[in-house]
């Protein structure tokens, strides 16, 4: 199963990083830490503004690629019905390959931006993995606006939760939300309904 194999790769890469670069915290920041810009009483740093702008741009570009280009169409075709895609002469393995490529490249962009904002440790990917998975499922698998919406909702729930609950429970809050979704709305807000019992 692909999921299990990918967990294996996750462990391998994380440990290679910690072997090569060591377990200590690394930083990409240059210069002193400055006070953020004040916008309507909220503090925001320039790098955080860059993160928001980049993620919006990439969101639009990815949506356009999926919706308009031929590549995007084949990706959606494979996701929808792999067998039918093969019948139409689409090389599904190839499509899966470059989908993984695009997805991983996007993750790398996020990683670079995050490294400028907070520092780097070898295990930082784990947090991103968890939050990514939760956001995608809340939003609905197979929907890019869904993923964005899921991410927003998750971030809000986690950070508003800090008001009442200690911040050390953030991970637990995220996964409690995930379990609730899986129980009551397993396909998220925008997801297609997929059932095992299909005859």
């Amino acid at each position: 199963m692909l999921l299990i194999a990918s967990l294996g790769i996750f462990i391998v890469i994380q440990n290679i990083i910690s072997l090569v670069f060591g377990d200590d915290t690394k930083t990409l920041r240059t210069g002193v830490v400055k006070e953020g810009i004040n916008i309507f009483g909220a503090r925001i740093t320039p790098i955080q503004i860059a993160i928001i702008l980049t993620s919006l741009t990439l969101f639009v570009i990815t949506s356009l690629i999926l919706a308009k280009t031929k590549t995007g169409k084949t990706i959606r075709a494979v996701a929808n019905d792999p067998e039918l895609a093969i019948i139409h002469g689409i090389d599904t393995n190839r499509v899966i390959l470059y989908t993984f490529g695009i997805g991983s490249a996007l993750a790398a962009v996020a990683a670079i931006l995050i490294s400028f904002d907070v520092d780097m440790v070898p295990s930082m990917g784990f947090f991103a993995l968890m939050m990514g998975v939760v956001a995608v499922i809340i939003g609905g698998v197979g929907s890019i606006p869904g993923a964005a919406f899921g991410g927003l909702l998750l971030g809000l729930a986690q950070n508003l939760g800090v008001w009442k609950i200690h911040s050390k429970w953030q991970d637990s809050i995220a996964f409690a939300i995930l379990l609730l979704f899986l129980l009551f709305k397993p396909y998220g807000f925008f997801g297609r309904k997929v059932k095992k019992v299909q005859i």
Partner: protein
Amino acid sequence: MNYILHIFILICIYIILSISLNLISGYAGLISVAHAAFYGIGAYVVALLALNLGNYFLLNILCAIILAGILGAIIAIPSLRIHDDYFVIATFGFQIIVFGVMNNWVSLTKGPLGIPGIPQPALFGITISSHLQFLIFTGIFAILTFLFTKRLVNSPFGRVLKAIREDEIFALALGKNVIKYKILVFIIGASIASVAGCLYAWYITFIDPTSFTVQESIFILSIVIIGGTGNLWGSVLGAVVLLTIPEILRFLGMPNAIAANVRQILYGSLLVLFMLYRPQGLLGEFAFKRKG
């Protein structure tokens, strides 16, 4: 000598864990990455009861089994509505929450500091303390687990589990109560895993949340997959192989700091290779199929 006995004791503990996960994942086909959670629950229940209420061997182990069983039933409930990857993610979430509780509920579990000084169990007036006594003690539990599970999977109950794994709709059509079987198999698997946790707490006499992380769950799952899904001897073989290979690294003169990483790289890449080229594992009879 104690070093060799130590490895054998750990192998016995992991045999119990991998057999119980094999029951869930190999026989019933429900892949779970929450096994370290049940393992940890067993360890924490026994440690806290022994330190706060009294070191009663049977009573404490029974409490651990009951709590793990109840939580096992709770984690089984999503499996009725979601399947495959979604279910793996649900168990992943459960694992994170249990780890969060162990790590953050400081007033009860002492959080990241862990619980030291867990008293060793006393059985019929004999306190089990030496390595050899522990090996016999955990060995008995491992053999009991093996015989119990063997009996279980060869019974009509085990055949229904296999039917669910192969074709859930078909099992439903035959009038089998799939829901009941899924919940039952999770209760049994979780209970056995909690017993392994009890043994671990008694043996090491110190527990902290880092022994019960997601990585640990993935490790137990890789024992099951590499050893062979749906075959009890496979789980035994998997535990022996995956626990002895890292020890060989020690004799190659690798420093401890690197050895920990190399160990994880090793089993991670084994997991990937097995999933690609031999998904049924060394001795397995059932392979998790690729979708589509």
